[in-house]
C-alpha cells in the first residue's frame, strides 16, 4: 500500500466510525487532494464532510479549532506545513492554549496534517521544517510517520486523540509503499518510539522522511562496510518525546547520533539533545552528534539543495566519529 493510501484509509475509516470527523483543506475535495491523498473521499462522504477551502490558512485552521471546541473532530489538511507560518497564531494560541486558559473546560480534538519539510526544488519559502516550532509548544502533540503502516496507525490514533495533533507527512514520502496490517482496528500508540533495529555500537535517532531517504541506507552501509552495529530508533512522536526508550538504548551503546533535516541550532535535534544529554551524560563515551541540514535558506538549485541535506556519507562520518573510528 502507498503511504498516501494509508493516510486515506485512516481518514476514511475514522470518518466512517465517527460522524463528527470531517476533512477540510485546500483542494481536498473536488481536486481530490493536491497530492491525491484524499482521492475519492468527496465522492464517498459528500461535500458536507470533505470540504474545499479558499487559501485562508488562518481562517480554516481556526475554524477547525472552533469546531473542535464543541465536539467535532476536524482533520485540517495543509497543502504544506510551510504555509502554516501564516497561521501559527491559530495553532499556538488557540489550539494549544484554549484548554489551559479555560481551566480545562474544552477539549480540542483537531488533527492538522500535511507535508512537512523539503520536497525538492521548492526553494526557501516552500521547504520549511516546522517540527521544532510545534514540538516546543506545551498543549500540542507532534507525530511523524515514516512508513505506510505508521502513517495509518498513527493517524488513526491522532484523529481519535482528544488533543490537538500536528501530523507531519512529507510530499516525497507519499509514493512509498509498505505493508499495512489489515482491519480497521489497527492503530499505533502516540508517545512511543520504535526501536527499528537492535544494535550494540551506537544509538541512531531519526524520524520522518530522512529515515527512508538516508538513515536506513546509512545503517546498512555502517553494518556492511564498517562493521558498526547501529541501534536505530524511529521516534514517531516528537512531543511528548519517548525519552525513556532513547536513554535505555544509550545506556547500552554509550553513543548517540541524531539525524534530521531541520536546521541544527534551536532545531528538533537540539531539543532531543537537551532532553537526553543529562540522563545520558554518565553513559556517553562521546559527545552526541547531530547531523542536520546546513543552516542556510533552502536553495532552489538541485545540486545546492542536495549538498545542504544530511547524506549517507555525513551520517556514516558522524557515526564513525562517535565510535572513534
Amino acid at each position, binding site marked *: 500500500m502507498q503511504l498516501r493510501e494509508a493516510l486515506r484509509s485512516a481518514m476514511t475509516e475514522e470518518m466512517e466510525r465517527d460522524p463528527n470527523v470531517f476533512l477540510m483543506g485546500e483542494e481536498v475535495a473536488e481536486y481530490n487532494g493536491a497530492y491525491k491523498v484524499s482521492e475519492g473521499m468527496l465522492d464517498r462522504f459528500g461535500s458536507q464532510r470533505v470540504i474545499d477551502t479558499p487559501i485562508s490558512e488562518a*481562517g480554516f485552521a481556526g*475554524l477547525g479549532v472552533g469546531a473542535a471546541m464543541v465536539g467535532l473532530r476536524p482533520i485540517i489538511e495543509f497543502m504544506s506545513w510551510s504555509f502554516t507560518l501564516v497561521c501559527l497564531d491559530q495553532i499556538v494560541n488557540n489550539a494549544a492554549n484554549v484548554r489551559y486558559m479555560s*481551566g*480545562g473546560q474544552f477539549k480540542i480534538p483537531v488533527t492538522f496534517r500535511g507535508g512537512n519539510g523539503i520536497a525538492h526544488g521548492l526553494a526557501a519559502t516552500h521547504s520549511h521544517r516546522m517540527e521544532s516550532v510545534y514540538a516546543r509548544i506545551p498543549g500540542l502533540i507532534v507525530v511523524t510517520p515514516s512508513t505506510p503502516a505508521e502513517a495509518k496507525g498513527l493517524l488513526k490514533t491522532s484523529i481519535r486523540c*482528544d488533543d490537538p495533533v500536528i501530523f507531519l507527512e512529507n510530499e516525497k514520502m507519499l509514493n512509498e509503499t509498505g505493508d499495512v496490517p489489515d482491519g480497521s482496528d489497527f492503530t499505533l500508540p502516540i*508517545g512511543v518510539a520504535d526501536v527499528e533495529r537492535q544494535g550494540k555500537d551506537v544509538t541512531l535517532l531519526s524520524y520522518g522522511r530522512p529515515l527512508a531517504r538516508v538513515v536506513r541506507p546509512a545503517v546498512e552501509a555502517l553494518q556492511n562496510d564498517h562493521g558498526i552495529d547501529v541501534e536505530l530508533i524511529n521516534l514517531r512522536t516528537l512531543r511528548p518525546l519517548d525519552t525513556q526508550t532513547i536513554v535505555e538504548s544509550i545506556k547500552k551503546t554509550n553513543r548517540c547520533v541524531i539525524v534530521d533535516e531541520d536546521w541544527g541550532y534551536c532545531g528538533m535535534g537540539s531539543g532531543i539533545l537537551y532532553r537526553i544529554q543529562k540522563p545520558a551524560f554518565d553513559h556517553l563515551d562521546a559527545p552526541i552528534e547531530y547531523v542536520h541540514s546546513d543552516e542556510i535558506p533552502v536553495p532552489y538549485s538541485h545540486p545546492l539543495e542536495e549538498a545542504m541535506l544530511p547524506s549517507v556519507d555525513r551520517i556514516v562520518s558522524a557515526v564513525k566519529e562517535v565510535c572513534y573510528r
Partner: protein
Amino acid sequence: MRAPLKDCSDPRNCLHFDTHVWDTRAGVLNRTGFDQLEWIQMAVANDVQVAEKRTAKRAEISIGQADAVSADPAVLRDRLRTMMLIRRFEERTYQEYTDPRKFPDGRQEQKIGGFCHLYSGQEAVAVGCVAVMDKARDYLISGYRCHGHSLALGMTPHAAMAELFGKATGCSKGKGGSMHLFDAGDHNMGGHGIVGGQLPLGVGLAFAQKYKKTGGVTFTFMGDGAINQGTHNESLNLASLYKLPCIFVVENNGVAMGTQVDRSSAEADLAERGSGYNMPHWNVDGNDIDVVIREFSKAVERGRRGDGPSYIVANTYRFRGHSMSDPMKYRKTAEGKWRPEVEEARKRDPIVILQNRMIEQRLITDEQIEAIEAEVAEVVNQAVEQAEADPYPALEDRFDDILAERYPLQK
C-alpha cells in the same frame, strides 16, 4: 433625576444608524455613512426612489420576536439590572485594580495582574445580544474586553472576580485572567487575548452548528481595531462562502487603544468593511439596547434560516481607558481637560437611555432603579469579598489542564 434622553448630539451614536439602505443586489443590506451626511441624504433619497423594488427584499428580514417594546416588563427590568450589574462590576474592578492588597507587615500586592479592559459604556451591546440568544444552542465568543459578555451570559460576579484575582475559584481556575474568561456551560467561548484571533474560532463554532444542524447561531465579537487583522478577511469570506450562521459584531467604541477609528481604518464607515463578501452589513446604535435587540434579531433569523452570516457594527463608546494604565490623552485638550465628546458620550450612556425609556413608559420607577443599584452593588461586594477570601490554586495545579489525554496513548 435621570439625565433626560436627548437628541443624539454625538454623530457616532446618532439614531441614523438603524436607518438602513438597501443595496440593489439580493439580500444585501447596506449601511449608512455616519460621518458623511451628504451620503446619508443621498441614500435616503434613493431609498424613496426605489422603495417599490426594495420592499420585497426588505421583507426578507423581518423584525425579530425579541422586540423590546412588546417584551415583558420583568424581562426589561432584568436586562436593565444586568447592564447595571456589569457597570458596577467594572467600576469595582477599576477600584480593585488600583487599590493594592495591604498586608499587616506593610507589604502591598496588586490584586489584579496584567492588562484589564473594562466594558463600561458598552453594556447595551452585550446585554442586547444575549437577549436575542437561545442559550441552548447559540454561542458567543469575544475578544479580551470580555467581562461584560461573560456576566451577560450568566457568569457570576464571583467567578469573574475570582478569575481576575487569580484564584482557584475563578471561571478558568485562575489560569486565564481578565482577557480569557470562559464558561462552557453558558456557551461563553471566551475571552481571547490576540486581537482578531477569535474570528476564525467563531466561524468554526458556526460551522459546527451548521454541520450538526442545531439551528444555532454564533455571535463573534471584535473591536474596531480588530477589523484590520488578516483574520477579518479570511473569516468573513469563509463564513459567507459556507453560509454559516455566524454573526460578526464589531463593537465600535471609536478607538483602539489610543488610535481613533479614522486613524486606523481608511474607510471611517466601518460597516463598509463588511462589503465584498455578499453578506448584509450595517451600522446600529450600540448604546440603545432596543435597537441592538431589534437589529441583532434580524441577523439571528437570517442565521437560523440558513441564509448565512451578517456583519453588524454596533457604534458605542468606551467610558474608561483602554486598559488600566491608559491616561486617555487622546480624549483631552492640550490643557488636559476632557474634550466635549466625553460629555456628549455620557449623555448617551446606554444605561441612562434604557432607564429613561422605561420610566417614560412607566415600566419602572426611580425607587426601583435605586433598589437595583443597591442590590447589584451588594452582589458585587459579596463577590469581591468571597473572591478575596478564596484560595489561590495549589502550585502543582499549574501542570494540569494542558492536555486532555494521558500519554503514551493508543485508541
